């Protein structure tokens, strides 16, 4: 029955999209901005610049969160 499998696939892809959004939100909580949004932003505003790779971007976010961005304690 193609119709039901189609809707199943649709539900599955919606579920995946939801999962991706959830992951993105989690990363946001840990101070890691959305990489795709960064790429889109850079392409739109500074087309000539070479963007950071995904790994570099992630490393940069870690560095910002933990090295001298201000105290996070009590």
């Amino acid at each position: 029955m193609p119709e039901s499998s189609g809707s199943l696939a649709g539900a599955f892809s919606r579920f995946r999209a939801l999962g991706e959004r959830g992951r993105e939100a989690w990363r946001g909580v840990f101070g890691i901005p959305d990489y795709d949004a960064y790429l889109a932003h850079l392409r739109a505003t500074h087309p000539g610049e070479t963007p950071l790779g995904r790994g570099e971007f992630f490393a940069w976010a870690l560095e910002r969160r933990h090295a001298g961005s201000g105290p996070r304690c009590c």
Partner: protein
Amino acid sequence: MNKLLSILLWGAIAVIGGFGFAAIALNRGESVNAVWLVTAALAVYFLAYRYYSMYIAARVLGVDPRRATPAVRHNDGMDYVPTNKWVLYGHHFAAIAGAGPLVGPVLAAQMGYLPGTLWLLAGVVLAGAVQDMIVLFVSVRRDGRSLGEMVKMELGNVPGTLALVGVLAIMIIILAVLSLVVVKALAESPWGTFTIAATIPIALAMGVYMRFIRPGRVGEASAFGVVLLLGSIWLGRAVAEHASWGPAFTLGGTEIAWAIIIYGAVASSLPVWLMLAPRDYLSTFLKIGTIVALAIGIYVVAPQLRMPDVTKFIDGTGPVFSGSLFPFLFITIACGAVSGFHSLISSGTTPKMIESEGHIRMIGYGGMLTESFVAIMALTAACVLDPGIYFVMNSPTAVIGTTADKAAQVVSSWGFVITPEIINQTAKDIGETTILSRAGGAPTLAVGMAQILAQALGGKSMEAFWYHFAILFEALFILTAVDAGTRVGRFMLQDMLGHVWAPLGNTEFLPANVFCTGLCVSLWGYFLYQGVVDPLGGINTLWPLFGIGNQMLAGIALLLCTVVLMKMKRERYVWVTLVPTAWLLVTTLTAGWQKIFHPTPAIGFIAQGRRFAEAAANGTLIAPAKSIAEMQRVAFNNYLDAAVCGFFVVLVAAMCVYALLISLKALRAAHPTVKETPREEGTAYA
């Protein structure tokens, strides 16, 4: 229709809260169910959020949702990113919530559950959340500048520098006192020590996984990290009972102190991805999970509060911390009611990520209410314990001795009847050899949590597991804070020393980095060591010092907010910041004064120092000091603590004078003199 619904909803919340308080008020003298306390607190938070924070946003600050925020104006996809308000709320909460709200309320429970609860609620609604929210607002209007820079802008260069030095001093004290909490929890506890030690290789493995095997997969790595952690708790019991491994992991207080000092120096020199970041993820997951579990546990188990509403120790003779209710309750509970530290976070990354000024209320005010709720639950967990157990766990050795018999006798004589059998049984239930004199909040909270969670899940046989889970959870995020705080302290030292000798300020220059890391670790390590050998058990000495420092910082932040309101020509609303400022100044200056000059040695640093110095001169020993040299060291440490306290007092007094002069000038000015970034139209986000 919507309006009617809203009236009904908020009316219902008010009625529920009223019931909670009525249950507490009508049952005074009898035991009250903890559910009432937590429900009443929740109702207060909802009402304060709905009405008071709205008033502050709309009337006092004139929040303008159509005014472009720094994230919108400077959007670069990296530093400045407009962020979904729920994500930012999580980010902000994860940054402000630490061990503070779990320790202070537990210590304050010695005065009964009522004083702590009332201060937590009144403090957060009128002071703590107000500070977090207005500092965030002020920073958003100034391109996300930091507290130090804003004090410089609005109050002048000298106050700006003073504030920075003050922040560094508070950092040092907080790192020492948090480490001391870990020492108190792990001393003579092979099970606890093993599980904490196991977090180091687990974090390293996670770090490598996220860096090389599956870059950026935070969720996956954290999930397997949590599983390994739970496994290490399970393994910990076997290790503790093992004939040769057990003794190997049984360490005394000074040994653990040295281990933490070395850990701080090494961990803060490693790249962040290797250890700090994975530990940060683990502790955030555990923190959120544990807080949710505790909240559900309290509602499922509905335990009775066994601590009296008010104990006789409000007169200042309490064994946990010395000094009477006023002013010492108000500096013992800092985080959860009002915490100066948050002003650094509200002016850190949060203002650079906020989408709209309309979100300031939820993130600033709402974030702090959530932290206060955590503090209320910590207080509840401490107050459902048998009060006898509470005092046995939190009184120093000098007062209750070192055996269960002696401790039971002393604590029973205070009116909290307890037998040596119950003490020993409690220790056995949680899988420890002793529970005597484990001050510092973490172990007490862990026993309270273990009893609540074991009743909800697993029964008596699981109590030892839950106890060590709670210890692990607290120690993990304290050690994360030690690592992160040492890095921040090093940067601050480099920033300051760079003015003295330029190469020291160069963060790319390895010898300068090593030197400043060493200096930072030595500073907090000194206070930690002093706490471990302190005759009154350390927490008694260092926690008030931290409380005074933290509240002083809150005073400075609120003074800044007051000056800004005056400069905005909103003087008719200035009471919103002026009332909490005045209260903080009165309590902390009184507490500071008493800690320095009070004639009772348990309260006054100078009196205690003199007591030891004179005894040393006469050749008599006061326990636990074992030599004249140790006696002299205790005397010196007390004079040093008096000096640190004096520094905080002078600092805040100077700030007050500056703020007053500038406020008067602003009052005379005909127009607003505030230094905001000019308004730009932005897209409104509700």
